[in-house]
């Protein structure tokens, strides 16, 4: 984003997009396309076409711009539209994660007697993150990469606040378990 771009707020760009200004829409796309791409890559299965998800997201944003409310930040609004584009391709499983928390914690090293260190280097964390299921990558992207509030993450995913908290906690434990597994050749 250039310094000139930064002076114009998302709200202004969305309002101008709603009024039919193609330049404003283009600037909105350029400002958020990388974040939508990262979210699509995290939340969608690997064989889904990220460009198609991006295209549907921004076309939906252009159509819905006049209904955008100022109190909703642009980024969660766009990622919620991306989430809908992903859902249209592949409806999400509504099955609850029933893995007992103690089991997840043990896989992450709890009650292991402190054996073995984990590798927290960038490449190790990147590989561990990539190996997680899309549901875990999605919630970690929203809460620990985009720094969304629980309320914003709930709006994107359609989950309750309580479900976001639970899913985030479980995803973090699975990330740690994966790091431990990778570090010890599991």
């Amino acid at each position, binding site marked *: 984003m250039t310094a000139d771009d930064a002076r114009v707020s998302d709200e202004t760009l969305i309002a101008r997009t709603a009024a039919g200004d193609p330049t404003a829409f283009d600037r909105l796309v350029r400002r958020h396309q*990388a974040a939508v791409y990262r979210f699509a890559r995290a939340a969608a299965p690997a064989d889904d076409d990220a460009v198609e998800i991006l295209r549907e997201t921004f076309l939906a944003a252009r159509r819905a711009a006049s209904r955008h409310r100022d109190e909703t930040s642009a980024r969660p609004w766009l990622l919620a539209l991306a989430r809908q584009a992903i859902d249209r391709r592949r409806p999400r499983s509504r099955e609850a994660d029933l893995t007992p928390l103690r089991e997840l914690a043990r896989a992450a090293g709890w009650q292991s007697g402190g054996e073995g260190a984990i590798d927290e280097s960038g490449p190790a964390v990147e590989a561990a993150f990539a190996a997680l299921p899309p549901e875990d990558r999605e919630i*970690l992207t929203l809460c620990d990469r985009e720094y969304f509030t629980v309320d914003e993450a709930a709006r994107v995913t359609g989950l309750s606040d309580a479900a976001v908290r639970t899913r985030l906690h479980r995803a*973090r434990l699975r990330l740690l378990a994966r790091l431990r597994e990778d570090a010890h050749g599991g």
Partner: protein
Amino acid sequence: MLADLSEHLDGRLGFDRAERIDEHLAGCAECGRLLGEVTAAVRALRQLPDEPLPPDVAERLAEALLG
């Protein structure tokens, strides 16, 4: 205790609950270590550089939005 670790890490627990967890952590090496490692993993995840948009993706998107 296990269910509250992430909430504790994010500072979202009420004072009483956080205090009870701190008391537990002070006397339980296993839970203390788990919290330390989850915290370190989350910190490392947050420090990863953002993946840039590949140029071919930007080009394909620009074309798709024109069409």
